[in-house]
């Protein structure tokens, strides 16, 4: 037998480090550049050369009603869709986990919203909400309801965006929950049955508690992605009516690319970044404690 040395883990470093280095370069440098831009007067709309203006962009943010308004909109578009996705996704996962005869097609149907481009999802719903072309109000009228003017009424426009987000992302949540449920040990359900528990009780007292860490994990993932909601707003409402559906990142986009105020938009992005950090902090704590990546 030839003498054999196990491969030291360090030998693999040169295989992994290019990816880590590239990813960090591509992400950390832009963030630092944004910090720099946020202290400059750079604006493509103004002929004056850019100069250092300290914290003046941030100062102006505090008086910008449109910016202040965008913060609660961002929060609403996190809390409402994510909560609904988790609840609805749970029920859908329970149904699929029952393997009801004749319901296998649901699994395939769920894939569609996950892969359809967000821009197409947005356009589709834009059509559905448009009075003459769309069908939402037509179907509401069939059950005797008078549909609102979805996209021109500020409150209904908010509801419209939430509906689209729930339509688009519940399937992902449901499939993740289903994957977790399928790994739950049968013995626990068996024990519940022997104890005379009903089906509903087994869902409540076995499935739900076992699913809790997955709910937290998926809730976090969805929260981060919900903070980045963009194409749907861009297409369905374009932030309107009168900026009613404008999130922080959407306002940053408008400031930077419609009004061309790059310095000012960068300051918005920095604030947005801190909102993100508020989510990432607890996320990392949770993941470091609960995440088991060894197979």
């Amino acid at each position: 037998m030839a003498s054999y040395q196990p491969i030291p883990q360090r030998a693999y470093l040169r295989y992994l480090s290019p990816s880590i280095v590239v990813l960090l370069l591509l992400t950390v440098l832009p963030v630092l550049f944004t910090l720099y831009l946020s202290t400059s007067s750079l604006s493509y709309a103004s002929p004056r050369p850019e100069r250092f203006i300290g914290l003046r962009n941030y100062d102006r943010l505090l008086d910008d009603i449109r910016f202040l308004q965008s913060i609660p909109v961002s929060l609403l578009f996190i809390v409402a869709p994510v909560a609904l996705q988790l609840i609805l996704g749970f029920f859908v996962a329970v149904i699929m986990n029952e393997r009801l005869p004749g319901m296998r097609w649901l699994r395939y149907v769920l894939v569609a919203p996950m892969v359809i481009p967000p821009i197409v999802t947005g356009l589709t719903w834009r059509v559905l909400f448009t009075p003459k072309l769309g069908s939402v109000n037509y179907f509401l009228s069939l059950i005797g309801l008078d549909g609102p003017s979805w996209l021109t009424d500020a409150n209904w426009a908010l509801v419209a965006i939430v509906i689209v987000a729930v339509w688009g992302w519940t399937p992902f949540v449901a499939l993740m929950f289903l994957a977790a449920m399928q790994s739950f040990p049968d013995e626990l359900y068996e024990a519940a049955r022997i104890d005379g528990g009903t089906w509903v009780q087994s869902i409540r007292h076995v499935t739900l508690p076992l699913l809790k860490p997955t709910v937290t994990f998926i809730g976090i993932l969805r929260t981060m992605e919900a903070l980045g909601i963009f194409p749907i707003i861009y297409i369905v409402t374009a932030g309107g009516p009168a900026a009613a559906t404008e999130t922080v990142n959407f306002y940053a986009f408008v400031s930077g690319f419609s009004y061309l105020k790059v310095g000012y938009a960068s300051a918005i992005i920095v604030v947005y970044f801190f909102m993100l950090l508020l989510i990432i902090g607890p996320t990392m704590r949770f993941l470091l404690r609960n995440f088991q990546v060894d197979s």
Partner: protein
Amino acid sequence: MQRRSKLTTTLLYVFGIIYGLAILGPIAWILLLALKNALDAFAYPPLFIFEPTLEHFIAIFEDPEFRLAFSNSVIIATGSVALAMLFAIPATFAITIMRGRARRNSLLTILLIRMVPGMIYLLPYFVFYSRIDLLDTHIGLIVIYLIFCLPLIIWTLVPVWGAVPLELRESGMIDGASLWQILFLIELPLVRIGIIASGIVAFIFAWNEFLFALVITRKKVVTLPVVITRYMGYEGYEWGKISAAAVVIMLPVVVFGFLIQRYMITGLTAGAVKG
């Protein structure tokens, strides 16, 4: 499993079918709209039976801008997958042997980078690219997509590659093969399904991406998601073209999605969350 009452079973069916229809309905609607002529499209109440027409599909494929966008989307999505693979394959090879804290921290760092909203990076790339003349180039967009495609591929690939026994590496070493030889000659052929599946996941991302494409491209390299918004022009919305284009854009990714649906969520279920 517990025995369900008849009522519960019925409710599960009813809810499941309603939910399935709510998902399918909007997709069916846009399909029908793409096949309706302008008059039928605006009929009220909506028509479910009508004479279908392919005029909108013909119109978009006769539009040179749409054709250009189609080839751009193919080039950029394929290029993004290829570039990301170059990095992701060796990285996954390394991660599969790592254990404990090193493995966890690398995977979590990579996951976190993928989760950060693109808006954070949009402005700096725009300003930087405009200074070094990378706006409206394929490579400019492909490099940015690396931020998202690389983590997607690694996360989808790790569970597949993790199933390859590590003894293979040890016996390869005993036979005098180098690590690179083991990677490319022994293990890569074994995980080709994973390579294909993760490649498709990344392809779907790049094909669908809108925010960066909207800002970084102008004329030469506009992609499909950007070109479709141009049919929402000043002269009013061309709904026929919009819905036909929507169908064309989503068709390939829906087909891909069905093919690899098993792998699409494994990426995230790979790391089990402890109870």
